């Protein structure tokens, strides 16, 4: 399979990328290319210009402050998966990044690209939503910060404006996080995943809980009722079971090659229970 004809532009700076994307009708941004290039090979998209943003400097750092872990948009998913800093400050993100495709794809795929592609089966959207992360974006009108709940507009759609690019993400730190995913085999894209991040109140109760689902009809379905069930509890087994069931109830799972809605819904329940338990174990250990 060969991509359709297009022009290729390498942007040296963010300003250049924004300007070219704004002025060229039908232009598309390319970061690591691990989502866009397969679509190009199937000719599912036909950009006039592919704008390579992968060489823009300053967008590939991992930094942390007291509360926040900041990851640049061009950090590869393999770096996230292997970073000891991420593993310590956001095990949810370390898990989710490790779950993406395979190491060869992760060597090029980027955090910004994985989010901006907004594929319901991509793993980082749910990790962003569960972590209550924020996305920093830059466009023609300057920089803005987008709350995770406001980023995804639907499958393969985001609230990013035309010529607006993700430059980085800000994640509240928590050692109590986990991502559980079902892949039928290594080459499988994935059936479903559940992201969980929890913050304790310092006295054994849950203060903040974030739960989101990969693989539903929406991108990163947030399980609000499940979160509410957990908040204030000490995550006893029956509360976890109810939260897991509530997670499954929140996500509308499509029936397809990978399973029926009935199966996937049960799978989400199981994965949610496992993710919550693992997050709690990590929180207790951390």
């Amino acid at each position: 399979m060969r991509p359709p004809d297009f022009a290729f532009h390498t942007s040296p700076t963010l300003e250049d990328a924004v300007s070219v994307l704004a002025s060229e009708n039908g232009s598309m941004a390319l970061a690591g290319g691990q989502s866009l290039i397969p679509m190009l090979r199937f000719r599912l998209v036909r950009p006039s210009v592919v704008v390579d943003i992968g060489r823009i400097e300053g967008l590939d750092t991992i930094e942390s402050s007291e509360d926040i872990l900041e990851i640049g948009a061009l950090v590869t998913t393999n770096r996230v998966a292997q970073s000891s800093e991420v593993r310590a400050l956001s095990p949810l993100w370390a898990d989710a990044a490790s779950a993406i495709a395979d190491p060869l794809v992760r060597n090029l795929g980027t955090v910004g690209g994985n989010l901006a592609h907004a594929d319901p089966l991509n793993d980082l959207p749910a990790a962003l939503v569960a972590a209550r992360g924020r996305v920093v974006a830059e466009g023609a009108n300057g920089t803005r910060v987008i709350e995770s709940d406001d980023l995804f507009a639907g499958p393969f759609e985001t609230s990013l404006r035309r010529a607006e690019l993700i430059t980085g993400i800000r994640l509240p730190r928590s050692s109590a996080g986990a991502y559980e995913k079902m892949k039928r085999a290594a080459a499988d894209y994935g059936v479903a995943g559940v992201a969980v991040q929890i913050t304790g109140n310092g006295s054994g109760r849950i203060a903040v809980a974030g739960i989101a689902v990969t693989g539903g009809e929406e991108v990163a379905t947030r399980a609000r009722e499940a979160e509410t069930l957990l908040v204030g509890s000490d995550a006893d087994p029956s509360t976890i079971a109810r939260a897991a069931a509530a997670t499954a109830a929140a996500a509308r799972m499509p029936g397809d090659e990978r399973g029926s809605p009935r199966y996937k819904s049960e799978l989400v329940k199981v994965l949610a229970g496992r993710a919550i338990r693992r997050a709690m174990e990590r929180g207790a250990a951390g």
Partner: protein
Amino acid sequence: MTSIGARLPRKEDPRILAGKGRYVDDLTVPHMVHASFVRSPFAHADITSVDLAGARETPGVVASYSGSESAAGMPLIPTAAADWAPPRTPLTGDRVLYVGEPVAMVLASDPRTAVNGAERVDVDYEPLPHVLDPWEALSPGAPLVHPDRGTNKIGEIHKVIGDPDDAFARAHHVVSRRLTVQRISASPMEPRAILAVPEPSTGHLTVWLSCQGPHTLRTWLAHIFELDESKLRIVAPDVGGGFGSKLNLYSDELAVIWAALELGVPVKWVETRTENFTAGVHARDQIHDAELALDSRGKILALRSHFVGDLGAYFHFFTPVVPDLTIDTLTGNYDIPSVDIKLEKVFTNKMSIEALRGSGRAEATFVQERLIEEAARELGIDPVEMRLRNLVAPDQLPYRTPFGLTYTGGDYPALLERAAELVGYQAVRTRQAEARKVGRHIGVGFATYNLLCGFSPSGHDWNPMKFFPGHESTLIRVDPQGKAVVYSGLCPQGQGSDTVVAQIVADQLQIPFDHITVTHGDTETIPFGGGTHGSRGAVVGGHAALVAAERVVEKARQVAAAMLEAAAQDIAYEDGVFTVVGSPETAVSWHEVAEEAHFLKRCGPMFEPGLEATAFYDPPDVNFAFGANAAVVEVDTETGKVKILDFVSVDDYGVGINPGIVDGQIHGGIAQGIGQALYEQVSHDESGQVPSASFSAYLLPSAMEVPRLTLDNMVSPSDTPLGVRGVGESGTLASPPAIANAVADALAPFGVRIDRTPLRPDVVWELMHPE
């Protein structure tokens, strides 16, 4: 000096490891153009118009053809296996019968432009009702795939041997199941590829083709295009896997050849993976209503299976005979006196099924081993014990099956017992019981196999195919230095037969392995041979090499006799030295003989110059290899995911020529069996589309899914000079049922029936939680 049995490094490897392999897509010739196809998006539709104008306007497009314009000038494609075949032309003219059928072809100066041009071909279709389910296809009023025939039923074979009705009537117990072996894909890592190079000035045509046997295809090509076979050359360079899927001449490949002949320029086409899943052949796809009649001790009295084979829309080479193989192999290694087997073959609006590693026999093994496992469970007999009570015992050999096949050699109970021992059967049972107490579900499953292989003697029932040779060829040419080039009719796709053949020849000629070069896959240089398929490399191709080598040695003996002034029958040949029997000091070396054979300087014209010989070896009979597999799995009952914890294979392939190669064949076969058991399925949606047409949906097992495999072997030499049996397909037969049986065992507390594969997580979970 003995090479046979030694773990010698493969002759094939250094070049490929250096990145210097030569697959068809690696070849470039001057003035070459590239093809791209327009394919049917419908399972069944009339083509109302094809507009090529857009393609023809695309800069760089050299030519474009549609079936509706050109089919009349295109040849019909026959089948090798039946008198009648559904008419099929390289590009379809007026009606498409499956998704992926080639409708138009665009040729351009480079591959990207060819795709650009193909995108601009405008085809109008009038969709017709289609039929995908074989049972539905057999029912009255079903849409007809080939309306002229008036039915979708291709044919029926019914074999009743012994007295099955009586056995079922008096049986203590009958176990019945509907068992399905799904449609799968060979999925060689190299998709199909062809480069057709015409020579208009002489009328010659060279076709570089990723294939499994160039000679047969040359005959067919000459037949189809009414060409002189002498002007046709087919070359299979390095072939990146075939597994049965590259025995054919496909419609699109013939379209490429047709266009090359029309235009007089070289045409190259390399299939995409997506095309391989729709326009490349599929395999298996049988549904069996099967039952066993048993006495109170679990002895099988009779086997009945009435089954349907969904063959798809057209015939490729072996399409109509693949399910026939299932019939006669359904009793496997078991002593079953009475059988009632009925096969109905059906057309549907899908791509054809074809040969695929273990074809016909893998389906049979799944049915027999699933049934026996269920019988053991229902009778409360241990599954190993159940099998031991029914396996053909060594003292029954030679054993004639109800279908008239004769098994010789081997100890089937011992193979199974060894597998049970290696898997630690009793320890696994203990572990299983412990695990169940904490809610974990481990299971152990067994299966045995009997691989009918070494296809196939020319006159044998298993070789009914027109223009399909049963023999294999070898030409050995020794040069004046005494080194040999071996021209083998085999056409390997990774089997390592250059190495195996060299080992056989080295032992006969008594020269170093490194002094032998093996070449294959070129009709211009290789004597007419059959190619590589059906586990025939060693047992047919190996014997051709053996006989040719014996003839070379005989000739060398005559030369030595002349040199030593003795009679040929008095010449001994040992360790590379010819001596006169009784006077070992009177000797000439192999090298001296080779030199003299060409130059006749010492003896003068006492013999015909040259040192070479050709052999065509037609095996006296088919062969059999056998073994037993054991699998231990854990099922995550919450998600339905199956993990293989341990896998044991104990095989008897007769004499193993190269242990590294033989183990690799078994590993690879088991990996494919794991895929069939747990992951792989070519699926069709209601419209006949193939949603599984990619490696992200059609899941090949990776290094994460195939566990470390434990192999052992027992050797019962076959009744052939080399003692070899066959091994290429061994791993594919027992592994799917062994794994399915292990899953059934793990889930026994849940009363789940495992009646089909693949046992993907959702499938297992749905079985455990019926609506």
